[in-house]
């Protein structure tokens, strides 16, 4: 190519810069919503369930944990499922108060069972817990997770929550 046809350095630089600016603008306009859509799940917190009635206080015996189902509406993306079982809860009556424990083992997520003496044991890897859920043996990194409880008009209400498994510190997921 004859040298006279090559634009001067200044004009080449101008066009290169113009291209870069336009390309960046196009990338931004299209890129922001695309990247936003991809990373949207990181911004969203899981939907909160409110307090749900699970049992009557006088139906709970002392000294023995009782496992009750939590029935509530569930949302999955755009679908609202009508009231159905979303999880279960161990209720331990202590006098006039109630302790609610999540049956999800903090070790690896198996379902924790109750023993006749009121203590708990996980069948998967033999984690054992006392009547209040504190670890007495086995690989569980922390105690069974307590759930918020409210008593109203003789009814026991629990707010079902999920926690991160496998960690020493309790964190809501």
């Amino acid at each position, binding site marked *: *190519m004859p040298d006279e*046809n090559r*634009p001067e350095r200044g*004009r*080449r630089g101008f*066009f*290169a810069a*113009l*291209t870069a600016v*336009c*390309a960046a*603008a*196009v990338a931004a*306009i*299209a*890129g*922001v*919503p*695309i990247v*936003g*859509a*991809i990373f*949207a799940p990181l*911004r969203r917190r899981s939907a909160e369930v409110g307090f749900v009635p699970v049992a009557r206080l006088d139906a709970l015996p002392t000294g023995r944990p009782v496992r009750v189902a939590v029935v509530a*509406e569930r*949302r999955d*993306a*755009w*679908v*609202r*499922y*009508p009231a159905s079982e979303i999880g279960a809860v161990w209720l331990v009556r202590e006098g006039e108060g109630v302790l609610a424990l999540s049956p999800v083992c903090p070790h690896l997520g198996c379902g924790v069972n109750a023993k006749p003496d009121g203590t708990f044991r996980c069948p998967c890897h033999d984690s054992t817990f006392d009547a209040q859920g504190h670890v007495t043996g086995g690989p569980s990194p922390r105690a069974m997770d307590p759930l918020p409880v409210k008593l109203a008009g003789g009814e026991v209400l629990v707010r079902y929550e999920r926690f991160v498994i496998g960690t020493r510190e309790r964190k809501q997921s």
Partner: protein
Amino acid sequence: MTPRRRLAKWLDERAGLTALMGVALDEPVPGGARFAYVFGSAAFLLMIMQIATGIGLALYYSPSANNAWSSVWYVQTQVWLGWLLRGLHYYGASAIVIVVGMHALQVVLFGAYKAPREAVWLSGLCLAALLFGFALTGYLLPWDQKGYWATRVATSIAGTAPGVGGGLQRLAQGGAEYGTLTLTRFYAMHVVVLPLAFVTFVGLHVLLFRRHGVTAPDRVAEAHAAKQAKVDAFWPRQVAYDAVFALLVVAAIALVAVRTHGAPLEAPADPTQAPLPRPEWYFLALFQLLKYFEGPLEAVGTQVVPALLAAFLVALPFLDRRPGRDWRKRKPFVALVALGLAGYAGLTFAAVRADAKDPTIAGRKRAAEEAARRAMELAAQGIPPEGATLMVANDPLVRGQRIFDSQCRACHAVNGEGEKKAPDLGGYLSAAWIAQVVDDPGAPHLYGMVHKLANKMDPYGKKLKQPDIEAVAGYLAAFRAGDEDKPEHGAGKEIFGEVGCDSCHEVDPNKPNDGPNFHGLGTDVWLSELIEDPGSPIFYGANNAMPAFRDKLSPADLKAVVTYVASLSGTPPIAAK
């Protein structure tokens, strides 16, 4: 050496990047860079953008009849900037059609389809056909009324093709009926098959184009052959022109997307409710053309004319064998193309004008917008597992409106839409509507058309001043909420007694009189009883002209109609003439 140069050298030694970039960027542009050449690159960029925005949408979209609309609703309203993503993809589709059209036009003007570039032209036509495939399959995916019915029309037209039509239609629909299998099939086409084919043909198109180079105007080509023409490299000047144009297009798309807050979404597809289907704007010309070929001639519009147009475009490089690319030397062919374009534009405008002048179209559009608004409202409360279509159909307001349309609109218009044999129910029992009745009950849009009732009540507009009429109307409108005895309606209540309204209209329950009893006026119970038996002595008695619906509507249907009629008080009544 700077880190950047070192990296470039490392890559170059291993992948030969400099040579590769050179091939791409050192493409010679005889006669220098031109704005006329930007359209191909812009189309390419838009393809990339459609793929990228499409991927973003695919992270959320669910191709089943139950879930498709809901997933699109979810992206539109629940995902951060999801509406913008939809808007870019939707208006990007229109943009790519326009840009490809401009690209084709530039190619025709510059004679760039002529030998030895016939294969480039043909691969370009294949790309255009694939583009229409994208448009057709994509339009159905939201599974809203608009997309569903427009595509049903399109596949029905395909079904009219001689011989293969029926099989073609079944193949497209995934069966004998439209349903989830249609959607999964269209989705697979739109997201896998068509993109693979498109990318392949783009590769072919670019390779073939690069073999022959850009088509410059004749005088430039001659000078170039004599090595006396200016030649630019693709980079940086042509690339810069391309980049500027691309930015203009993308900015325009984004602007429209922002102004319309994303892309349209009508009410969920309902096979039982057929609106007046309209295709997307770039198909309107074909839609208009079909209006001129009715009955046995229909095949001319659906098969013959499109086939002839396609055949002409395919044959163009072989028909136009004259040497020289100057458009002045190719006037007949350029004229034919210009004629085709003018025809396309003319038909499109004719379609738009015909719809604009048709009042039923305007009414249907309003109904569609209202249905869409109601669907969005319901969706925000959570869509049930049975899907959005059933969510809408089971909504008492929607059910009530459908029953009203089939049972009541034969006499009662609402805001002017419907027959005018009985009072217009727009704003029914709102204070404004009641005020109109008090003012002039015999008005043609009120009781004037019911001959038994037309002169039964005096027009109080002649006896009362406007503020008094409004006070009485406000008092009566308050019965719905049970607020009629509140102090703010004291004045209206007084006038009701003083002027003598109560000599015909009782407010104690179950007392008959010459006019309808106003106890619980406007409540669901009152409306129910009125619709069940308007001839009862506590309503219109011997002067009644309305059929009793007690045995014509099931209790559930009655409840739905009452819900709908009660909701009308929230809308403004049509103005008295």
